[in-house]
């Protein structure tokens, strides 16, 4: 709502005391609006442009502000919070360098469609464009990596802009929205009215699938003998795990998931094929290669999934459900597209789905699972990274929230942790951001204090954001970190070994890695170094018992281990490499 003349408002406020709007500063309206949107946690970092706003935060009791240690960590923490809950993650940073430090976190959230609202301080309106102290054109910098953004120059529009920002962030295909807050606007006053409705003429996402298309889909599915359901992050984002599970069971079709789709269907179910793609299981990739019907559910045929497009699932009819029309048919032609929210579409479709004649196909797949299981060679002298994940999966009964960083360990998590619930596997899939794991785990633990949250990270990526351990100590957050310490930038090393004649250019970390146990202890975390299986099991027990501070396990693992299976970039199923065991 717009208020143009404040004298009138003041007059009316004396007339009708009860309903009179409050006259508030922009900073106060900002906080009122966050409370109005249901925000309970803000990840932030103060600075000159926000100092007056932080004075209000000092007195604010309705929401919690967590001081992070680096703004990039703040954005990943908000991202982890959002992935674990489905609620938008909230970030608040100062102008200039505070704002530019959020760029990687925003891009990470954008690529994986994570709802997030990032508020950046800005120099006073009249100084914008003057190269003022700590000025950065953050709207310009982030335009290609935000779903939308606003500059709030007029305090009268602030409540409305914030409401729109939240609406855009969480609806349709979710994503990060940035709101830039000039310092003078935060200081100026106006009457505050909570914003209730949103008028955005250019934004009307299609949630319900067209009735006709859903009917067509029911027919389209009939007659398949070798169906595969291919589930992506969209199923998690739309909270459709139950509907996906019902769909697959009714159809009697096996389910494979993308990195971001893990958790949408229980991996303990016989119908699960685990992950597909470059480091997917042999049998998931074989099934996709062989199937006669492929149903993409909230998945976008990313190149890490398809490899060589020409040879991807060559014999199948394809159906795709996605809320974003631009994802449909972008890489792979689709015979039956349905634009809509996965949950909403499956709610319509499930009642009319009929069982496929797929028993023979399922038997064939069961045999493949026996002949080509995920596997690795154990070794008495050194822990295998896969073994660490397997042990953790057992120790936590597949019920922990696992945040991952990026590298080999990320793939081993996807392969070896048996996820049974949605929103339990937090991984930077689209952007592949090293440094994501530590703060994302922190954010998830803040969001879910009653769950076990473990950040599993490489020794390289850990060092990109390990300073967030300070944040966990500051707020007594009992988040756990497991470093799979292979002394290398392992994933790059693997490519160098396989495709560059073992020229290990700039991937050996060991000579300079710090003593991670000492590093963690210096922050005040509980830390252990682990080298053997016995020590590992013991360390997991001890780790679970800590409830008042973060835990860091430095687990020394085999430096040579590689991630298999592997379909080299741009290859197809015929190029799959398996572990030599």
């Amino acid at each position, binding site marked *: 709502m717009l208020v143009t003349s404040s004298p009138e408002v003041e007059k009316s406020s004396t007339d009708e005391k009860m309903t009179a709007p409050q006259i508030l500063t922009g900073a106060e309206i900002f906080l009122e609006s966050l409370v109005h949107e249901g925000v309970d946690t803000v990840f932030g970092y103060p600075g000159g442009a926000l100092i007056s706003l932080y004075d209000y935060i000092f007195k604010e009791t309705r929401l919690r502000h967590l001081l992070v240690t680096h703004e990039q960590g703040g954005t990943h923490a908000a991202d982890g919070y959002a992935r674990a809950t489905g609620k938008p993650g909230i970030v608040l940073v100062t102008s200039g360098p505070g704002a530019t430090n959020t760029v990687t976190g925003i891009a990470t959230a954008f690529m994986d469609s994570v709802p997030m609202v990032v508020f950046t301080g800005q120099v006073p309106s009249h100084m914008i464009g003057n190269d003022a102290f700590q000025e950065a054109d953050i*709207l*310009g910098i982030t*335009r*290609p990596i935000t*779903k*939308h*953004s606003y*500059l709030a120059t007029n305090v009268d529009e602030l409540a409305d802009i914030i409401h729109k920002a939240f609406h*855009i962030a969480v609806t349709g295909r979710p994503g990060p929205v940035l709101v830039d807050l000039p310092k003078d606007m935060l200081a100026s006053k106006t009457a505050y009215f909570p914003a209730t409705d949103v008028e*955005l*003429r*250019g*934004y009307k996402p299609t949630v319900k699938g067209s009735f006709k298309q859903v009917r067509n889909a029911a027919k389209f599915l009939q007659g398949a003998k070798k169906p595969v359901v291919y589930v992506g992050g969209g199923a998690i984002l739309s909270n459709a795990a139950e509907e996906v599970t019902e769909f697959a069971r009714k159809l009697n079709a096996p389910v494979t998931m993308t990195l971001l789709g893990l958790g949408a269907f229980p991996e303990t179910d016989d119908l699960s094929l685990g992950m597909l793609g470059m480091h997917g299981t042999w049998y998931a990739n074989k099934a996709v290669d062989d199937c006669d019907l492929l149903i993409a559910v909230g998945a976008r045929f990313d190149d890490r999934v398809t490899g060589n497009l020409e040879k991807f699932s060559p014999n199948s009819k394809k159906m795709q459900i996605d809320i*974003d*029309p*631009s994802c449909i*048919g*972008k890489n792979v032609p689709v015979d039956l597209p349905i634009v809509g929210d996965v949950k909403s579409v499956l709610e319509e479709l499930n009642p009319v789905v009929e069982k496929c004649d797929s028993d023979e196909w399922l038997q064939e797949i069961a045999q493949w699972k026996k002949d080509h299981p995920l596997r690795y060679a154990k070794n008495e002298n050194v822990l295998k990274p896969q073994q660490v994940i397997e042990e953790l999966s057992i120790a936590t009964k597949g019920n922990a929230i696992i945040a991952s960083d990026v590298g080999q360990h990320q793939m081993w998590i996807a392969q070896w942790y048996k996820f049974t619930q949605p929103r339990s596997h937090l991984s930077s899939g689209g952007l592949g951001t090293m440094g994501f794991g530590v703060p994302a785990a922190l954010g998830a633990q803040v969001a879910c204090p009653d769950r076990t949250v473990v950040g599993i990270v490489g020794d390289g990526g850990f060092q990109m954001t390990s300073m967030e351990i300070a944040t966990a100590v500051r707020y007594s957050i009992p988040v756990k970190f497991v470093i799979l310490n292979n002394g290398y930038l392992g994933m790059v090393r693997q490519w160098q070994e396989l495709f560059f004649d073992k020229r290990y250019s700039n991937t050996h970390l060991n000579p300079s890695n710090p003593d991670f146990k000492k590093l963690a202890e210096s922050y005040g975390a509980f830390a252990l170094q682990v080298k053997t299986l016995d020590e590992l099991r013991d360390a997991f027990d001890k780790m679970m018992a800590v409830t008042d501070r973060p835990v860091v396990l430095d687990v020394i693992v085999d430096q040579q281990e590689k991630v298999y299976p592997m379909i080299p970039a741009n290859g197809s199923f015929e190029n799959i490499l398996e572990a030599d065991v």
Partner: protein
Amino acid sequence: MKHTINLLVENNVGSLLRIAGMFSGRGFNIDSISVGASEEEGLSRMTIVTHGDDEIIEQINKQLNKCINVVKVFDLTGEAFVHRELALIKVQATPVERSEIMQIVEVFRAKIIDLSPTALTVEATGTEDKISAIISMLQPFGLKAVSRTGRIALKREFQGVTV
């Protein structure tokens, strides 16, 4: 194939930047882009001329629709539509050459809108082909400056009727 896309967008700098940035970020072509007020307050009308194969054009349309401050997208290609371009052409012209230039201007139904002892400025409106033609006719006299608006377009009210 060449496509003419007409957009109604929220009237602010951010809209233009988002749209132009989307084209460059995704490697789509912009042959011309023109923007100005529309019939509705707060909304601008933008005409983009682009080219690409069917899949690219489909992506362009979908990505435009995805922009939050794009209110409407019409791909005019395949429909009946009118389109024009405006050009200002400053030509070197000695007093002796003026009459020859004026003949050319007349043939193209253009106008002379500024005159000096050494140069004159021509205003021409029409299809891109016509504009290019008059420019090439004026070229021999010496072009001092050319400014073209790029195509603006509207759908014809009666489809199938050409005036």
